[in-house]
């Protein structure tokens, strides 16, 4: 059975009236007439294929929050009707008319006035919303970049984090293209109409829009795949679900208020307030969900077991004890009888970095029990290596202490041959050497901290083990 209705996701920009008119005429030729435009899809109804002409005008006073057209708008519709035009659909200030007449009078016969109407409508909706979106995207990108500068290894080794930056970059680029494209068109059209010419044809950058849409879908899928690997996919799914519910919820409230005839101002106020309230509820639900999921993950999926320990001073405390595989453990370096170790491994792998963290701990805090921790960082691109290595070299340096001439931690270069590395450093507090070392070979950086000062043999064994490829 043939469908009477069809919904499509369209990638038109609000100001690209030329392309929309052509597209709608083309759809009518195929037997589909535009019936509804929503923020999510465009709906078409089946008609007999026909040569139908579509004309788009912009009515600055129109609002997406108005329950019905204003008297001025109705008068405008009447004028158009009398000239053989029917209103097909509205999209905020955009009014889409159609006619089946071959020789209908054009709706706009004064190009300067047409340009002015379009610009007034754009100033009301498209331009401010695009600017807000760009500012928001830039703010988000700056926040993420500042976070990378503070914690480069943690952020650069996280694909979710990187995909968020890509996603906001796509939003910013798309906004800039819209804005620059519009102003170029407006300036050229203004010049042309002042000289008695017509408005310039709009360039909707449809191919570019499609590329950006595909990129967005790509980033979204990548984010999901990363989350799947991380086993925290439910956080991603819950976030997407909740955001979608907020968007649908806000749109539903706006549409319902319109349907019951609430005034434009009231509708706008209620819709904005509901958007804020729903966003807060969403954040609350998401935060609760994340905490519950982490607890669930610990209890059911991780190797961690909750246990209660007693410190040497008699206090009791509960900790999660892990039993993850570690490439190097204290027992390989020192003889020890202690069997209550927690072996914790974490692995973050992104397109730029792999960051493996290992921590062998003693939660009884017995000073005689030896522990150690180490990070293994594989930098996947040469250009990123120095940045990551410098981060580690500067990690413990207190800039204030350096400025004031106080004692501070600082890495000093040591003989790399013991570590079989390209370069090796030892952390010093003023002139006192510590048991923390940093070395690298090829694109692998290793930072290791022992609970004791290791012997040369232990250093060499550690390096052999940790520099070995998996």
């Amino acid at each position, binding site marked *: 059975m043939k469908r009477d209705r069809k919904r499509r996701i369209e990638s038109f920009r609000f100001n690209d009236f030329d392309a929309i008119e052509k597209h709608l005429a083309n759809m009518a030729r195929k037997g589909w007439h535009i019936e509804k435009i929503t923020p999510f899809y465009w709906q078409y109804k089946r008609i007999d294929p026909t040569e139908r002409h579509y004309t788009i005008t912009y009515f600055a006073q129109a609002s997406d929050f108005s329950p019905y057209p204003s*008297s001025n708008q109705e008068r405008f519709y009447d004028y158009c009707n009398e000239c053989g035009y029917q209103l097909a659909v509205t999209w905020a200030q955009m009014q889409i008319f159609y006619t089946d007449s071959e020789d209908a009078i054009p709706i706009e016969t004064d190009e300067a006035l047409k340009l002015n109407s379009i610009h007034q409508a754009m100033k009301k909706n498209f331009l401010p919303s695009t600017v807000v979106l760009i500012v928001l995207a830039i703010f988000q990108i700056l926040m993420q970049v500042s976070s990378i500068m503070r914690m480069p290894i943690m952020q650069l080794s996280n694909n979710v984090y990187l995909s968020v930056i890509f996603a906001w970059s796509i939003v910013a680029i798309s906004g800039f293209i819209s804005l620059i494209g519009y102003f170029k068109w407006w300036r050229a059209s203004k010049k042309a109409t002042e000289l008695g010419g017509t408005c310039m044809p709009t360039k909707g950058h449809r191919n570019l829009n499609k590329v950006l849409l595909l990129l967005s879908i790509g980033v979204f899928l990548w984010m999901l795949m990363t989350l799947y690997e991380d086993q925290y996919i439910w956080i991603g799914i819950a976030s997407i679900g909740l955001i979608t519910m907020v968007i649908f919820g806000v749109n539903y409230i706006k549409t319902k208020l319109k349907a019951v005839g609430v005034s434009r101002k009231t509708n706008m106020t209620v819709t904005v307030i509901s958007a804020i309230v729903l966003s807060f509820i969403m954040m609350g639900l998401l935060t609760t969900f994340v905490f519950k999921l982490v607890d669930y993950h610990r209890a059911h999926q991780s190797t961690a077991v909750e246990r209660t320990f007693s410190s040497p001073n008699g206090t009791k405390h509960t900790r999660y004890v892990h039993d993850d595989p570690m490439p190097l453990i204290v027992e390989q370096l020192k003889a020890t009888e202690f069997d209550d170790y927690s072996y914790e491994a974490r692995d973050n792998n992104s397109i730029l970095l792999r960051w493996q963290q290992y921590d062998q701990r003693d939660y009884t805090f017995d000073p005689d029990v030896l522990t150690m921790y180490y990070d293994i960082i594989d930098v996947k691109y040469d250009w990123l290596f120095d940045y990551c290595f410098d981060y580690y070299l500067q990690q413990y340096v207190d800039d204030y202490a350096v400025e004031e001439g106080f004692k501070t931690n600082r890495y000093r270069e040591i003989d790399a041959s013991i570590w079989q590395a390209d370069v090796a450093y030892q952390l010093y507090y003023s002139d006192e050497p510590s048991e923390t070392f940093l070395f690298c070979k090829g694109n692998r950086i290793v930072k290791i901290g022992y609970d004791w000062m290791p012997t040369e043999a232990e250093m060499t064994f550690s390096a052999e083990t940790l520099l070995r490829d998996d």
Partner: protein
Amino acid sequence: MPREKFQTLTEQMYYILLVLREECYGMDIMTRIQLMTNERVIVGPGTLYNLLEQFEQAQMIRETKVEGRKRSYIITDMGLEALQREYHRLNRMIFDYESHT
């Protein structure tokens, strides 16, 4: 260069004001202009709506009556002045043309 509003009139502005020397409602204006100019000048419904609104704001026309959604207008003194100014400008242009050819 931007033109100061209504210091000079476009062809469509001129004929709308010319027609509105008699009381007329929106769509009637369009028809009368077509008849008057033998369909040489056509005013689209969007352009008509915008110009009527702007003329009204500039007090060059005024609304005379509202019948349902139909509104009738007539030219004001200010509108007549603008129309005459344009008429003289056009005459000067014709005179200049004739005296230089």
